[in-house]
């Protein structure tokens, strides 16, 4: 056998390896186009009784922010809520809520029942601001550094392992 006979085998093996790795990727997770960009301009009213609302400038006032896009009608939001409550205890970060296409009364009931981790909440009734953020489903969680730049995005509910495995290290890195 000459070495040349192995070329097709090598090419096919390489292709198989690449495709096999590709099978493991989750096609539902779309990489964000906004990483390393400043947060988009927006101005949102609050949930009733939780004044003031939320404007983009709030996120560039210094300090790291976690922006969580959520809705009371979203099942996975309920699942991740305990981890948001946990994140709210981390010193030096501000928890911000973006309430997506929700009924304010139901949103308030959700927070009354499960706890309110948020310092401020913007109510995005039409989903228009979420579009500016490139949101395509709830929940999504963004990490904003002190200058108001988006440094990370997590799509889908936060799981127990995402805090030590993903968010906390990213928060530490953003502090630098």
């Amino acid at each position, binding site marked *: 056998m000459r070495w040349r006979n192995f070329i097709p085998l090598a*090419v096919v093996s390489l292709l198989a390896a690449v495709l096999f790795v590709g099978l493991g990727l989750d*096609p539902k997770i*779309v*990489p964000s186009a906004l990483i390393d960009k400043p947060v988009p301009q927006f101005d949102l009213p609050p949930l009733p009784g939780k004044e003031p609302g939320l404007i983009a400038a709030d996120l560039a006032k210094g300090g790291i922010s976690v922006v969580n896009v959520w809705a009371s009608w979203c099942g996975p939001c309920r699942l991740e809520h305990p981890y948001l409550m946990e994140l709210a205890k981390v010193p030096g970060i501000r928890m911000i809520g973006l309430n997506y296409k929700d009924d304010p009364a139901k949103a308030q009931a959700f927070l009354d029942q499960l706890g309110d981790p948020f310092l401020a909440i913007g109510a995005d009734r039409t*989903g228009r601001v979420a*579009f500016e953020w490139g949101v*395509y489903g709830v929940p999504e969680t963004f990490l904003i550094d002190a200058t108001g730049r988006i440094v990370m995005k997590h799509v889908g509910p936060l799981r127990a392992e995402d805090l030590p495995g993903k968010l906390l290290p990213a928060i530490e890195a953003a502090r630098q």
Partner: protein
Amino acid sequence: MKLKLLRLVMVMTLFGITPVFAIAVDAVTLKDPVLETRARSIMQGLRCLVCQNQSIEISDAELAGDLRRIVRERVAAGDSDDQVRAHLVARYGDWVLMRPPLKLSTLVLWGGPPLLLIMGGIFLWVGQRRKAPEVIPPLSQAEAAHLAKLTRTD
């Protein structure tokens, strides 16, 4: 005039070209049919992010409806097709395009299949050439006589 149009539609249907008058049902469409047609052709090239292999034109997902509204808004505001697409790409990345653009990060995607085809072609060609049958010289007189002796049946 009306009959002519009907005839045209019938002939098109015969050839499997169904004229599509409406796909996704939207309450609000653009009044100007030229703009609406343009908006729809842009929608065809935009991927619905929650149903991924459908364009937003045919998807009934809520997000697709929101994106259709935004496309119509931009078209009505006088954006060119490319500007509308750029507006969405800025927020959702190249993923939102049904047809990924050719750039450094998509080089393997676009270049891979032709490259594999060329490599396969070269391999076949080289293999074929090496195996090409040699020209067999005719039997010499002695060989022919020998063969005749071996195959004689008496």
